[in-house]
């Protein structure tokens, strides 16, 4: 099992990344983690999801957004966070279920897409692709967040 906290640098655990430190176009290091049935169950509880909505032909899937707690792992391993980051928006596209009753090894690749200032606030945009270890595409994600002064 890989808990997000196992692979995500926490605020204040290492020096954080100021806005100037984000490099547009830079690839993130590939990241692998495993979503287990325990993690799926914990996620169901934490977001108060209705598990009946994720049953396919009597097989239980996870909410596809179970990837969200892992969202910043690939980013923060390259760019450790400073305190006070505020998420602005996210877009996800789902390609295949993550089954709730088995371990799923996920491989993540991503890159910094853009950084800009808007209305006096500084933003970073980055994207990630999630595949199963066997190559099956699982999801794509684009995230934008505000880096405080």
């Amino acid at each position, binding site marked *: 099992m890989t*808990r*997000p*906290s*196992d692979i*995500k640098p*926490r*605020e*204040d*655990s290492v020096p954080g990344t100021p806005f100037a430190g984000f490099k547009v176009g830079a690839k993130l290091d590939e990241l692998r983690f495993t979503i287990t049935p325990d*993690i799926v169950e*914990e*996620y169901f*509880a*934490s*977001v*108060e*999801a*209705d598990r009946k*909505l*994720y049953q*396919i032909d009597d097989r239980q*899937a996870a*909410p*596809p*957004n179970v990837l*969200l*707690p892992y*969202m*910043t792992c690939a980013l923060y391993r390259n760019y450790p*966070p400073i*305190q*006070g*980051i*505020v*998420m*602005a*928006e*996210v*877009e*996800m*596209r*789902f*390609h*295949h*279920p993550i089954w709730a009753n088995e371990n799923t090894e996920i491989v993540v690749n991503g890159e910094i897409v853009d950084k800009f200032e808007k209305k006096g606030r500084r933003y970073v945009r980055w994207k990630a692709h999630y595949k199963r270890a066997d190559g099956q595409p699982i999801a794509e994600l684009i995230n934008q967040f505000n880096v405080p002064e």
Partner: protein
Amino acid sequence: MTAMKREIPINQQQIDLYGKINGDNDIIHYDHDYCLKRGFRGTLVHGPHLTAFAADLAAKKFGKDWLYRGRLHTKWVAPVCPGDVLKIEIADDGSIVESVGQGVTVVGRASLDDK
């Protein structure tokens, strides 16, 4: 099909539970006094946590297709804090609005990609 709605009262325990699986240590979710100094009403619900509430309604709207070609965009425009009652709605066209007493907090859209 009619719009789908849900209401969820928000408390710090829910934020802490999401924070546990999220694995963060950002005081903006846990330190009330720090949040007041930043100009917020209180600690903030994680943005992806708010997205998950909308995603659940989208799964209800689109059925199993959601897991194979769902597309979800959420923009977090204002904070949600303990004590708020969060209202989540997905309209017939897939547009998402989440709001609390102070106004809209999340906007977005849920749809299906082409096969």
